[in-house]
């Protein structure tokens, strides 16, 4: 039998359904793959061999008993370590939560469990999801499977790398300013940020509440849609959750038809700051889509140029408040201040936060505390919220002209580890094309479109809120065109990792 880890989720699901493999086999193969390549990739913070196999065995037993099962039952999945789980630690890539075990499962995790999906483990991430390279994890960086001297993107570099390295067919990520889509772009995987409110945030340890959204990571558009369908839907525990059915994403991913589809190219995204190789791949993608019958038009979204500035005020403001709860009083790291006899609660809080948070987290807490200060609030937080409204209006105007918008996902391909660590502004600039969707709450997808310097380039589609299905339709069409051009699936072009076992 061919290597099960090379199967897509849809193929695994089909093989499980027709009885040609068991979930235990599939899960064990993936666990073995993790054991073999983790030394190079380091995508996981916690691997749950026992739990994953137990779920797999249970699904196999139920299937053998003739029980009707959800489509993805028995298909393993990896979960970003920012979603709470009762049976594995939830660290958010931070020392602050080292060893912390949540007493409750995130709604998304409960849904994976209800769908019978074995959870392979929790994936690495930039600390509290702050970063674009996964180098800000307190537990060391994850490497890009396409070139292990390079970053896998971030903050969800662990989920993207796990899927790109065939350690998992599917993974759950979260996207606050691009943390699913940018890692997807630089690791040659598919990543989707659903409409804000489309997937429950209950149990997603908040970075920026008004921007965070969990979504699927996969190697194909259809696989992403299948996982999206499992994760999505209304949750009464999340007041910002939309009380609407999940858009027909699977159907759209199976359709993949762009004939007559109007695709708007955002003129503000794709010029200055975007690498020539990235631009070339993007333009080639547009040409292929046009040949397949799409109508390509240029659309201006003038406020997008202020996106990063607005984002780096709104996000840190919410961060400064959301991360206040980490105070060593009830859970998490507790450090006594040095040289203080009989320290006060306040001193313990300060010492613990100093020891528990990394530099990037502290930087954002300080930025946000400043932006919300009285006397500065209107100029910073207030103005940023106005920009947010303008960006939302730009989207509304654009979607009156076109069905979906398009841009390169990320201005560059994966860069060498360490290159941007001392240059936060250059790191922040990586999010220029992904941030507008978070600020406006609209959905976005990144689909691999080609290689530049041997490294993957991502193509981003954006759609109106609650029209996530349009992303899957356009994404599936582009994916098919790329596969036809290359003569094989994109993921199959990844270099073989040295298997150490």
């Amino acid at each position, binding site marked *: 039998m061919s290597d099960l880890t090379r199967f897509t989720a849809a193929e695994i699901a089909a093989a499980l359904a027709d009885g040609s493999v068991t979930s235990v086999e599939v899960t064990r193969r993936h666990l073995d793959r993790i054991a073999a390549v983790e030394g190079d990739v380091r995508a996981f913070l916690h691997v749950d061999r026992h739990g994953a196999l137990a779920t797999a065995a249970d699904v196999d037993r139920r299937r053998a008993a003739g029980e009707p099962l959800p489509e993805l039952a028995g298909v393993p999945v990896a979960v970003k370590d920012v*979603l*709470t789980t009762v049976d594995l630690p*939830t660290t*958010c890539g931070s020392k602050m*939560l080292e060893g*912390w075990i*949540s*007493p*409750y499962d*995130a709604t998304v995790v409960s849904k994976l469990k209800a769908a019978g999906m074995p959870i392979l483990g929790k994936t690495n991430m930039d600390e509290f999801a702050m970063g674009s390279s996964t180098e800000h994890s307190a537990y060391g960086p994850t490497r890009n499977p396409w070139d292990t001297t390079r970053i896998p993107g971030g903050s969800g570099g662990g989920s993207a790398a796990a899927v790109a390295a065939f350690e998992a067919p599917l993974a759950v990520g979260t996207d606050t300013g691009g943390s699913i889509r940018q890692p997807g772009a630089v690791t040659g995987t598919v990543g989707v940020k659903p409409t804000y409110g489309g997937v429950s*945030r*209950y*149990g*997603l*340890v*908040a970075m*920026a*509440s*008004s921007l965070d959204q969990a979504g699927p990571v996969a190697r194909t558009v259809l696989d992403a849609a299948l996982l999206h369908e499992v994760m999505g839907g209304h949750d*009464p*525990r*999340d*007041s*910002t959750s939309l009380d609407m059915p999940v858009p027909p994403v699977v159907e759209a991913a199976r359709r993949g038809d762009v004939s007559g589809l109007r695709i708007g190219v955002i003129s503000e995204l794709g010029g200055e700051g975007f690498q020539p190789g990235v631009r070339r791949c993007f333009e080639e993608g547009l040409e292929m889509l046009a040949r397949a019958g799409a109508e390509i038009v240029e659309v201006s979204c003038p406020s997008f140029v202020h996106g990063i500035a607005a984002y780096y005020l709104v996000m840190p*403001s*919410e961060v*400064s*408040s959301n991360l*206040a*709860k*980490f*105070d060593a*009083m*009830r*859970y998490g790291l507790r450090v006594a201040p040095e040289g203080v006899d009989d320290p*006060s*609660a*306040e001193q313990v*809080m300060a010492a613990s936060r100093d020891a528990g948070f990394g530099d990037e987290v502290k930087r954002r807490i300080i930025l946000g*505390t400043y932006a*919300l*200060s*009285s006397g500065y*609030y209107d100029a910073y*937080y207030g103005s940023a919220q106005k920009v947010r409204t303008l960006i939302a209006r730009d989207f509304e105007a654009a979607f009156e002209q076109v069905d979906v918008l398009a841009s390169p996902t990320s201005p560059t391909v994966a860069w060498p580890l360490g290159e941007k660590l001392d240059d936060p502004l250059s790191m922040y600039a990586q999010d220029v094309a992904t941030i507008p969707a978070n600020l406006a709450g609209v959905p976005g997808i990144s689909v691999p479109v080609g290689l530049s310097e041997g490294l993957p380039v991502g193509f981003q589609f954006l759609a109106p809120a609650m029209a996530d299905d349009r992303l899957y339709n356009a994404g599936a069409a582009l994916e098919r065109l790329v596969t036809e051009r290359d003569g094989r699936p994109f993921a199959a072009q990844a270099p073989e990792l040295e298997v150490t076992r």
Partner: protein
Amino acid sequence: MSTPTLVKFEDALTRYQPVMGLEVHVELNTATKMFCGCPTTFGAEPNTQVCPVCLGLPGALPVVNAKAIESAIRIGLALNCQIAEWCRFARKNYFYPDMPKNFQTSQYDEPIASDGYVDVEVEGETYRIEIERAHMEEDTGKSLHVGGSTGRIHGADYSLLDYNRAGIPLIEIVTKTIEVPGDKAPAVARAYVNHLRDLMVALGVSDARMDQGSLRADVNLSLKPIGATEFGTRSETKNVNSFRSVERAVRYEISRHAGILDAGGTVVQETRHFHESDGTTSAGRPKSDADDYRYFPEPDLAPVAPDPAWVEELRATLPEPPAERRKRLQTEWGFNDLDMRDIVGAGALDLVAETVEAGATPAAAKKWWLGELARTANEQGVDVAALTITPAQVAQIQSLIDAGRINDKLARQVFEGVLAGEGEPEEVVQARGLEVVSDDGALSEAVDRAIANDPDAAQKIRDGKVAAVGALIGFVMKQMRGQADAGRVRELILEKLS
């Protein structure tokens, strides 16, 4: 700490005008907390009514309690406020161990209710207290600081935290500045808090018990020289746990501020703690307008946009305002101001009203609740409302008296029986054999014995001195162990001696 120089209250008022502001926190009596499904029962074992949401665990999210919104709107309407058509929650950011998230979910510049007023009465004068706002927020946990001398976090050996209270819905009601004649200020402050209590109870939205902390008042006070327009520096007195304490805190702070100002000093803007034992206040945390809570709209909660039609429906459910109700009842009952003050003071207004509704005359209802029953409650050390007798039972006892089946003296025994759980008044009368004797045969014999026993009195009556009949009635009643119909006895005596 130096003892402050106090100026006699009356002297202070000759030079200064007090300016007050009152902040009252009302704990709503919803079954569950503001943002989660945890129960709100008072007095449970510490940290047993908690969940990931009210403990602020990573990833947990709040969901607004619809009942709390409803209560907030009804309170706003009862305070004659405008109800916001659209408002948001805001985060008030500060670090303290009893705050699970280190921010309190509250409201800032968009309160649910604003710009209202209430009228309170003090010694027959009506004072209008303007309400700035009423907003929703969640309560914090409770800290118990063990060791140290102050009972506060600084200097404590350790602190215990109970998060059962964390997340209980609160309504904070803030007045505009209150300027009333200085000598009335303490009483007006008290009357206002008392009024709010009555209002909350009438609305049924809170237990509003100051002793249990479900109604808490902060007293802001400053003085300005008489005739001045500019406000002085204020102090904010907390821990004021009874109506009487509100009054005392205002008096004390007036005396204390005056002492500082007379000596040419400056009042420090700070929170102060009231001490029930001696009626003084002591310095707490220094406070300034520069305290920066970095409020911003709560991104985890959707805005609150009550449908105007729903607000009107709620307006229709408002009870009669307590002051108006008191006035109406006073007129209906024909009582004077003093009678009403006694009834209200005894906490018996509702009881008397219900007894009247059950058929008793207002005078009878008042007589029993303020007399026999108030005495019993006093002996038992409970509120008169806590007695195990209902207004309906009181009315039944009175109707037994009116029917001549028992007299007032026997009624006391019936009260005793009902309170002891011996059943309904009728059953107690039967079981204890308390019915009065109005059988003329038995009474006639007793009257004859009385006349034979006291010929002097009998002669006086024959001579037209009817007042002497009392002595004979007394003898008959004694013989009959109180169970005689006194009216009939009198008639028989007069018949026999005419």
